[in-house]
């Protein structure tokens, strides 16, 4: 914005929007601070070119300065060990990237300052203006902490502010400091701070690299020399040149990294000792050790894990039933009301039987999905996930996975997409790839609607002891998914070859009481995405499906009416019976009917009829569409006013035998199909981007489809 130079009084237009990056070690309280600063103005997006997810939020400072805050993944140092960390470094080193920050808010946990300052000193050496936030997350308890703030500011060459990301105290001061930091951006460039003195060899190397790829500071040039082999923005030509220089100077990256890191620690370890005095043992540490005596106990640990998972699935099933009944009732009432006040035309039919029926079919599952996302967010927030990774690392290794895979597998229970993205913390490519390939076998929240509807036809709704039988069946399906995931992983482990080393090296953060604000934001964002994304697809598919199942080739439709009239006359059917029969015959003659009939031969051995065939086809876009499709098909196929899919399906009769369609064999076979099948376009798209190839999503799609088809075939043939 080139507004004229105004001498007095700056208008908001004078401030260019600035990019501020939020950077820090894992578990430094970065995300809490992000939520505090941006509130609900957050967006989730991807870094350009790669799919690493970032969260971005806009806010305005008191002087109207607009700020875009970008939350980067937690990182230990400028020497990345995983894909997640690489993204951070890549963005810091590439000034042309859209997400390259103008300045940085660096978050450090005050109780772990000795470790958290390593990355800070590196970032200061990269020449970024930095605001250091000392997060006192949990130590409101520790009255015994004294800090010499001025000493830190002077030695580390950056502004410092104390904040509690838990209570929000200090955030106002942070905003004022940030404002001043941004004001300084317009001013003259300051003298480059050098917290690490490059060796003669490093200086020479850095200079040569800077001639090839212009770096802001000597340290910037040095890091490009270290990371030239993978930095994407360098391009082939510059990469080769840098490689040559690195070779000529006989530069040993790993050794240089260790020397540099140790030298940095030598600089700030005494500083931290001087500036901060804490109690030797803190309450939260005592608490963590005591709790972990039980939670990570050799025998009790794994058992408690299983119990915890059982509780999670029980609560999805039992807590959600009341709000679900409520939502179903509201839609029933709403649909009926609409039908009465609207004229009897094609568009009111489209609205009630098509769109409302389809949407009701999916919205009713919001309570279950919310509960699941809520519980997983809590486990993550308190720090339990890292313990699960520690407990199961050995077992995971046996199956070709990493302890960290368990985080993906658990969150895969909510949705495969964030789960697959979370594998970026696994540094070994083979372990990461296998985790990505098997994660869709873990039953995600989109399967909840399908499972809930179908389990009703397989298991009675009674309780044994404290357990709800249907809840147990639900758990059984999740177990089936887990077992299938592990066994497939084992197969992939034996097929795939890799000589790369694998690591665990995982920080076990101290247990902390969950910040409900963080949990709330996570749940809100995920449920919103689920409803919005699923809602969009279901909305479109409902409309298309309504047309396809309400209209058909004229000759066929005429024949259906003719046939109905004949049958009605012969058997002396009353008005309602005739209308029902007509609706059913018309559906069969419609385009959707023709489509379903076309695939019927292939799925008949699995116990599925042509109506299920239609649902199978539509749910290849997203599996939760199944229930919506069923609702639309059965609403059109019957004149009865019924908005509960479960009741509609229960009433469905096989025309040849007169028995219910959803008997044990068919329902179970369908359950198996949905447990295994790869019916999610978005997951495939994410796998394509994460593996950077079409090969892996294709392999994944094929093996999962085969597993689903033959699994269902086996079940149906055994039971029928």
């Amino acid at each position, binding site marked *: 914005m080139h507004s004229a130079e105004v001498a007095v009084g700056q208008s908001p237009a004078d401030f260019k929007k600035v990019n501020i990056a939020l950077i820090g070690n894992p578990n430094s309280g970065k995300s809490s601070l992000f939520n505090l600063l941006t509130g609900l103005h957050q967006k989730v997006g991807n870094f350009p070119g790669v799919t690493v997810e970032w969260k971005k939020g806009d806010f305005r400072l008191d002087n109207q300065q607009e700020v875009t805050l970008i939350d980067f993944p937690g990182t*230990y*140092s400028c*020497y990345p*060990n995983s894909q997640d960390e690489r993204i951070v470094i890549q963005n810091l080193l590439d000034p042309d990237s859209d997400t390259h920050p103008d300045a940085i808010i660096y978050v450090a946990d005050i*109780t*772990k300052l*000795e*470790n958290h300052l*390593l990355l800070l000193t590196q970032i200061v050496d990269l020449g970024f203006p930095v605001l250091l936030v000392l997060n006192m997350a949990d130590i409101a308890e520790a009255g015994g902490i004294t800090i010499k703030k001025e000493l830190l500011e002077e030695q580390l060459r950056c502004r410092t502010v104390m904040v509690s990301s838990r209570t929000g105290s200090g955030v106002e001061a942070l905003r004022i400091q940030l404002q001043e930091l941004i004001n300084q951006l317009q001013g003259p460039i300051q003298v480059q701070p050098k917290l690490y003195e490059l060796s003669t060899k490093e200086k020479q190397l850095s200079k040569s690299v800077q001639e090839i790829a212009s770096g802001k500071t000597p340290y910037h040039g040095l890091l490009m020399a270290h990371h030239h082999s993978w930095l994407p923005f360098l391009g082939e030509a510059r990469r080769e040149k840098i490689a040559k220089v690195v070779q000529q100077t006989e530069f040993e990256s*790993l*050794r240089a*990294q*260790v020397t540099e*890191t*140790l030298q940095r*620690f030598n600089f700030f370890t005494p500083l931290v000792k001087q500036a901060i005095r804490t109690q030797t043992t803190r309450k939260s*540490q005592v608490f*963590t*050790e005591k709790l*972990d005596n039980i939670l*990570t*106990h*050799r*025998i009790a*640990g*794994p058992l408690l894990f299983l119990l915890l998972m059982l509780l999670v699935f029980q609560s999805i099933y039992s807590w959600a039933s009341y709000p679900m009944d409520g939502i179903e009732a509201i839609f029933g009432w709403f649909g009926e009301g609409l039908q009465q006040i609207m004229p009897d035309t094609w568009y009111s039919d489209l609205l009630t039987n098509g769109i409302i029926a389809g949407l009701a079919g999916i919205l009713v599952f919001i309570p279950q999905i919310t509960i699941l996302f809520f519980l997983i967010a809590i486990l993550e927030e308190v720090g339990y996930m*890292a313990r699960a*990774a*520690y*407990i*199961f*690392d*050995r*077992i995971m*290794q046996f199956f070709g996975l990493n*302890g960290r895979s368990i985080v993906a597998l658990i969150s895969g229970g909510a949705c495969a997409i964030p789960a697959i993205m979370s594998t970026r913390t696994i540094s070994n490519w083979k372990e990461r790839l296998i985790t990505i390939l098997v994660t869709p076998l873990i039953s995600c929240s989109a399967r909840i609607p399908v499972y809930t509807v179908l389990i009703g036809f397989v298991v009675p709704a009674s309780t044994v002891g404290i357990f709800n039988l249907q809840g147990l069946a639900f758990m059984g399906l999740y177990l089936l998914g887990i077992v299938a995931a592990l066994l497939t992983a084992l197969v992939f482990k034996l097929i795939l070859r890799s000589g790369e*080393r694998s*690591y*665990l*090296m*995982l*920080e*076990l*953060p*101290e247990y902390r009481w969950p910040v409900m604000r963080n949990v709330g934001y996570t749940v809100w964002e995920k449920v919103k995405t689920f409803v919005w994304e699923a809602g969009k697809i279901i909305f479109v598919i409902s409309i298309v499906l309504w047309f396809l199942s309400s209209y058909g080739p004229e000759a066929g439709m005429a024949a259906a009416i003719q046939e109905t009239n004949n049958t009605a006359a012969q058997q002396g059917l009353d008005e309602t019976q005739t209308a029902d029969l007509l609706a059913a015959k018309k559906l069969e003659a419609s385009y959707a009917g023709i489509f379903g009939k076309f695939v019927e031969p292939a799925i008949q051995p699995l116990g599925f009829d042509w109506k299920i065939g239609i649902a199978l086809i539509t749910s290849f876009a997203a599996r939760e569409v199944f229930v919506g499709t069923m609702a639309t098909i059965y609403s059109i196929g019957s004149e009865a006013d019924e908005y509960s899919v479960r009741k509609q399906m229960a009433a469905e009769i096989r025309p040849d035998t007169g028995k219910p369609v959803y008997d044990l064999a068919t329902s179970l076979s369908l359950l198996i199909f949905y447990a295994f099948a790869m019916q999610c376009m978005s997951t495939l798209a994410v796998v394509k981007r994460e593996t950077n190839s079409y090969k892996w999503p294709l392999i994944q799609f094929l093996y999962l489809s085969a597993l689903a088809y033959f699994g269902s075939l086996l079940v149906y043939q055994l039971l029928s």
Partner: protein
Amino acid sequence: MVAIINSGSSLTNCQKGTTFHIDRFTDEQIAARLISMGLLPGSEIRIVRTSPFGGACYVKVNDQYLALRKEEAACIVLK
């Protein structure tokens, strides 16, 4: 006594619950990673417990807790 017996031996051979000091590392790649997480020559280290299915140990280093695999712990040489 214990400290003398364990002198120069790796973390995997040492006694649970006792605090030692790190002397050096025997594997450069592992060392680079451990150092960036704050495990330095001179750091205090203590094995708190070993994992349920073996293979990993739960350690306290300076002021933080970490999970390390046996192979990772094996490259840590104690003073």
